[in-house]
């Protein structure tokens, strides 16, 4: 009996010592994690929470003063430019899907098929990707320049066509901005897709070939399903980032002509840093966030349904 009790005591001592060691170790680990926790807390968690919280407050400059309930939301939603801006933002998303979605994917497939000068091809395709977005916008702003000094009008001039106002044409301003962002971003996306294509097992293509599938059929049967996940992810990411577009319209058109290219992101920026009504900026940000959340929920529901149907 005594021996057993002694053993038990020994075990208990060992256990508590081990626990102490474990706590000590955990403490050290958390100390290493601390800088990241601090940065993530202040930069992301705290500011996003406050954004929601303060959107219900009136503000004097950048200082919250009193709780006003949904007043800020009312003001934002009844602002005459809100509806136009909301529609514009969807135009940005739609154009970017039309122009920018398949282009890098197709380019990657072509890159994958061509066997000559692959290294050079990759470097040239990626070239616009190393330009800062702000430089791409500046370059395209001057390519779109409304008089004959713009590059595109210079080409039109060769064919005897009068200079066209490009970005001042309110019907297509958004399309032209999206073309410039696609020019800057498609190369990077193509390289990502190319990496994915290189990861596809070649035996799948050979199996498809033995089944008599031609070039296009092989891609439909093998490439598209294999790359589907990546394509969906990139599409979702692209939609979210275009939904928040701010830098390009700010630099290229400043939302003009007559707010034809004002996006929700730009409107929010204007509320905060031009009109000094940050409470409206935050209310608008929350509206944008809610829109994205609703879309995400729909997306996941659809995804689930599709999966169930396939089962």
């Amino acid at each position: 009996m005594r021996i057993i009790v002694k053993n038990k005591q020994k075990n208990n001592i060992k256990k508590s010592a081990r626990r102490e060691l474990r706590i000590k170790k955990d403490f050290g680990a958390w100390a290493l994690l601390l800088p990241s926790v601090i940065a993530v807390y202040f930069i992301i968690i705290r500011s996003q929470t406050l954004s929601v919280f303060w959107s219900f407050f009136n503000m004097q400059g950048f200082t919250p003063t009193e709780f006003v309930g949904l007043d800020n939301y009312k003001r934002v939603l009844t602002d005459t430019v809100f509806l136009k801006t909301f529609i514009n933002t969807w135009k940005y998303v739609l154009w970017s899907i039309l122009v920018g979605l398949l282009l890098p994917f197709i380019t990657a497939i072509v890159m994958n098929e061509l066997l000559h000068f692959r290294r050079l091809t990759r470097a040239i395709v990626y070239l616009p990707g190393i330009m800062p977005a702000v430089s791409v916008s500046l370059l395209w702003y001057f390519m779109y320049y409304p008089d004959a000094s713009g590059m595109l009008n210079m080409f039109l001039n060769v064919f005897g066509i009068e200079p066209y106002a490009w970005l001042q044409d309110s019907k297509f301003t958004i399309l032209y901005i999206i073309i410039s962002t696609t020019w800057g971003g498609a190369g990077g996306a193509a390289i990502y897709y190319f990496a994915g294509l290189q990861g596809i097992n070649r035996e799948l293509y050979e199996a498809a070939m033995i089944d008599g599938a031609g070039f296009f059929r092989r891609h439909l049967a093998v490439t598209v399903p294999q790359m589907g996940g990546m394509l969906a992810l990139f599409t979702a990411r692209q939609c979210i980032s275009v939904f928040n577009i701010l830098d390009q319209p700010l630099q290229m058109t400043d939302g003009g002509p007559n707010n034809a290219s004002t996006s929700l992101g730009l409107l929010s920026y204007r509320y905060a840093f031009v009109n000094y009504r940050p409470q409206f900026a935050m209310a608008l940000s929350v509206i944008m966030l809610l829109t994205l959340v609703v879309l995400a929920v729909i997306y996941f529901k659809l995804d689930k349904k599709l999966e169930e149907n396939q089962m």
Partner: protein
Amino acid sequence: MKKIRLFFTFDKGALTDADMKKGKYKLLYALLILYMLVYFAIVLIPVVWMVATGFKEPAEITGLNGTFFPKSLTFSKAAEKIKTTWNMLNIGPTYINTFIMAGGSVIFTVVINGLAGYVLSRLKPKGSRAYFKLVFYLMLLPTTINMVPLYMMFTDFPILHINMMNSYLPIWLMAGASLFDILLFKTSFDSISVSLIESAKIDGAAPLKIFFKIIIPLSVPVITTVAIFAFNGQVGAYFWPYVLISDKNMEVLGVKMFKLKSGSTSIDYKMMGTLFSILPQIIIFALFQKRIIGGINIGGVKG
């Protein structure tokens, strides 16, 4: 890591050698080449135009008789143009400012997110899984929502009550909260063999020592990749520097480019300025091409 090696011995696409003997596929291959050439033209013409316009005389740009390339360009004229643009746009100090901002961002990105990745991958203290999940979900949120609170925070930082306007500290701090890099570091540390670390532990090495003596030397590829991407991303940053820094002596490249659009200089100087804004990245790309493409690959495999 396996995927990166793939990149240096390319795999073929869906077309096989047997296909290529058929006329139909030869034509298809030619069409693919044509597609690529058109793509090259679309990519390169604006870049060439930018360089060409940079070297033009202002009189050559305006007017209907403008040409694509400068008409009368001599070596001395070109050198003169580069020199005047350099001085006029104050490129030297701007480069230094940009390198300080981007370099600091790189240090914050690598150290803070690297340590976080290490803890989440190797040490796994109690509760770290919850933090990992949090990081993962936060990554899905758009960043424009926190514009105003961030600005307010930087004008009067909580607890410390310091004003961070007119310093690069806010930009560095934001680089420290790069969620994607935390995930990238974690997955990369996950792939380091456990036995090495175990044997070091038996020898009594502390976590930090393991980190510096084993993890870091083995992670040079992912660290350089993250560093290059962080640097490239920050060289062109303009929104936050524009909003936060009003001191002219601290102006960075991105802000300079943003102001250049509406500045009073003629287009040729603006295009020459744009050229200066991509020069650092072109040099970096030329030096680290393999790393950059390989890095894209790491991200791509993950994504």
